[in-house]
């Protein structure tokens, strides 16, 4: 497609749509006073990110993102909200701290990051080609996890076990009075 001298590819349109969805949902996530709706919008943000992973040639990661983030973490957060909130009663300005100060700080942070991205030389050298079309499949990820990255992989297993036990111990009702 050619608009005003710029060539626009379908990938660019897909990126803009997905990025817009993701950012809009993220803003809703932080601004909605009702925490349950915020959690649902977090799910939408994570879903949009999964779409971006597909654009980045990482379909397996997209599937992982949908299963773990959208499927598991969001569900867990919503369950925790059910267990711990009186959801409907909170007004916007009771639910938040000073938004102007926070927006200022976040804006400064964004400016800093954006200037860094815009000015970096190595980025320009590196970014010329776009994502490689070699299809990095599940097999390559499995090899990477079990050969060069086997130590962090095992470490992650240990951490997950510790977290499993820890979460149960912390959340368990104290029935023995100890």
């Amino acid at each position, binding site marked *: 497609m050619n608009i005003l001298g710029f060539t626009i590819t379908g990938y660019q349109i897909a*990126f803009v749509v997905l990025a817009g969805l*993701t950012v809009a949902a993220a803003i809703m996530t932080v601004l909605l006073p009702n925490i349950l709706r915020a959690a649902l919008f977090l799910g939408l943000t994570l879903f949009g*990110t999964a779409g971006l992973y597909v654009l980045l040639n990482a379909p397996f990661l997209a599937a992982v993102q949908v299963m*773990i983030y959208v499927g598991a973490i969001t569900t867990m957060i919503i369950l925790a909200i059910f267990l711990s*909130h009186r959801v409907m009663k909170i007004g916007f300005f009771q639910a938040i701290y000073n938004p102007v100060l926070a927006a200022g700080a976040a804006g400064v942070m964004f400016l800093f990051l954006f200037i860094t991205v815009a000015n970096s030389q190595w980025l320009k050298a590196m970014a010329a080609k776009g*994502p490689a079309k070699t299809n990095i499949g599940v097999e390559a*990820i499995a090899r990477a996890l079990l050969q060069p990255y086997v130590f962090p992989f095992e470490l992650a297993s240990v951490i997950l076990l510790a977290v499993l036990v820890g979460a149960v111990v912390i959340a368990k009702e104290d029935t023995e009075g100890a």
Partner: protein
Amino acid sequence: MHSAYGIPISWYLTLSAILFCVGLFGMMIRRSAIGMLLSIELMLNAANINLVAFGSYLKMPTIAGQVFAIFVITLAAAEAAVGLAIVINIYRLEQHIDADKISAMKG
């Protein structure tokens, strides 16, 4: 020079910066501990986009970016599980989860 898909990597990095700052903003304004956890998830997610983008835009595309992202997702799940367990326990003790008023751990 245009990339194969016409998307320069700086688009992804800028998007990631926006998401991170939105998460940072949420982290600063939320009172409830669960709201803070939501913002942390947003920030981790932004970092993940960065990792995957760098991984697939390198001249020799590497799997490392995706593997790192998988580790980050794993740790995010772990962090959410422990964080929510703590939140539920605090709610049981104090009937609220306002991060400002939680005083159980103060000396």
